[in-house]
């Protein structure tokens, strides 16, 4: 839907597109770019407990298991933006050792194995986990992306969110509580 709207916009007034923020490129946005923007927006509608931050001004940390297209898209989207006055840092995670520092964990379709092995450590941590597979929510994830009508949609597991200690905004729930 977003893509459709965008394409129409580009046709109607291409000039304004140039002036838009980095979140949206001049080209038709890729699936990665759309997902990166969504990740950023998820964080905006999420509240972490104070214990999740070592200091009041500590940055918000987005963790990725694998380097890839999603990282560059995310870096482009975020730029120097802040969420709730916190800076955003993107971190690559190969081991679960520094998992407690993460606030958002993106689990790519190929990272499913790592996610399952870290599940024990994840359960006690207030981390917003976002995955891509159909069974991600059943495995204990909070939000999963899926494609419908060639558009990126997302689904939220209210149960998991309640357990994790991460508070998702009702506005977000109303958008992603569809299934």
């Amino acid at each position, binding site marked *: 839907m977003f893509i459709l709207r965008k394409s129409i916009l580009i046709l109607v007034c291409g000039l304004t597109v140039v002036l838009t*923020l980095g979140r949206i490129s001049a080209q038709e946005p890729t699936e990665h770019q759309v997902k990166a923007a969504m990740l950023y927006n998820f964080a905006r509608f999420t509240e972490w407990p104070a214990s999740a931050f070592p200091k009041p001004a500590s940055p918000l940390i987005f963790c990725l298991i694998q380097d890839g297209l999603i990282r560059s898209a995310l870096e482009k989207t975020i730029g120097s933006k802040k969420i*709730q006055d916190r800076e955003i840092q993107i971190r690559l995670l190969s081991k679960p050792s520094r998992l407690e520092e993460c606030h958002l964990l993106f689990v790519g379709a190929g990272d499913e194995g790592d996610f399952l092995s870290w599940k024990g450590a994840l359960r006690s941590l207030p981390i917003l986990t976002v995955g891509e597979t159909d069974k991600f929510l059943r495995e204990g994830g909070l939000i999963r992306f899926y494609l419908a009508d060639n558009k990126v949609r997302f689904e939220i597991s209210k149960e998991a969110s309640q357990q994790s200690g991460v508070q998702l905004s009702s506005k977000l729930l109303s958008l992603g509580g569809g299934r």
Partner: protein
Amino acid sequence: MRQSRTIKFKLMVILIVTSLVALFAKSVIQGFQDYSTYRDDLASDMSTLAEVIANNSTAALAFSDVKTGAEVLSALRSVPSVVTAKLYDQIGNEFAAYHRDPETNAETAPLGREGVRFEKSRLNLIRNVMLDNERVGTLFIQSDLSEMYSRFRRSLFGHALSLILAGLIALLLSLRLHRLIAEPLLHLTSTSRAIAEKNDYSLRAVKEDDDEIGELVTSFNHMLFQIQERDAKLTRAMDSLELRVRERTKQLERSNRELQQFANVISHDLQEPLRKILAFGTRLIGEGTDRLTDQQRDSLKRMQNAASRMEQLIQDLLQFSRISTREHTFQPVDLAKLVHEVLSDLEVRVLDTRGKVEVSDLPVIEADALQMRQLFQNLIANALKFYRKGTPPVVSVTSRAVGPNVLEITVQDNGIGFDEKYLEKIFKPFQRLHTREEYEGTGMGLAICQKIIFRHHGLITARSSLGVGSTFVITLPIKQPQEEDTAE
């Protein structure tokens, strides 16, 4: 009662107009206040609403979820005054819309700066949708002002109603309250009118209150008291004055009567010895013609002349004094006939002087016939007597009515005339302008004339210039006034 109605009316008008003007001013001010309050209320209501909607639409905008955006906007259905609401995304493209009436596709208002703007019948509200200090979109809400206006109309209607109600109350109150002022004034007015009509200064106004009107009543009553007192004093003074005048008049009448009687008696008694002197003188001249010398005869003649002049004087004096002692015997007198008789008496004198007497029409008037005869006798005789040597006297007697009851008679001659500075002198007894040698006479003629005229309630005067002639002018009432003055 016309005046009383106006004062009542004025007071009522004052009361009603004052209260209505005050209320009207208050209503106008309140109307403005209401209007601005309603506007402010609406603006603040809409702002609150916009804040809620904007807050609810952040996620929809962030995730470009048009469906949710429309849902958020559709919550405005519960606010009937909202006509249109629209969400625009970050770059100003329409994202979701709500229309109260689905058919009317409201015009897309150009997005301006954030804020509330009133238009003719619409209120436009523009608000940025913020998320983490970032503008994720814009909310536009347009509401109908008809509800506000109908509210305003209701308040205006209420004000008008209260104005009418207050006017009625003011009318009712003024109907009672005006009495406070009007009643004492009306009482004062009616009292003063009663005084003016009846001339009764013993009336008093009743004081009802200690206000200015009460003070007015007090001073009004005081004034009445003073008038009454002055009246009484004046009456007393007049009474005593009248008494004094009456006394004095009586005294004067008495002395006048005594004087007249005295003159009468004296004249009478003087005539007796005179007649003897004349008689014996005549006898002396007749008997002793031979024995008397010419000188003696001359002396006797002179004595005789003096005696007869004295007799004349006494007769004139008697006549003069009798004018006023005579009883009133006014009756119609034909002046034409009377003057004719006088002329026949004077015929010898006219022939002697070769003079002429012209008499025009003379009317019948009410008078004492004898005295009228005396009057014309004296006047015409005078005119014939004082003629210029060599010029035969021409005398004319004329008359004309100068008023409804006033007759003017003139006796004009072409004689020697007199200087008008002696005008007063000639009407006094024994006053002569000429020597006895020039013109004979006792000097009583005109005095008698004046006295007769006065007795007939008339006037006599004269115009003259030396060497041209004299005109004697008499004004007499045609009918004598009905007065019975016992004092004469």
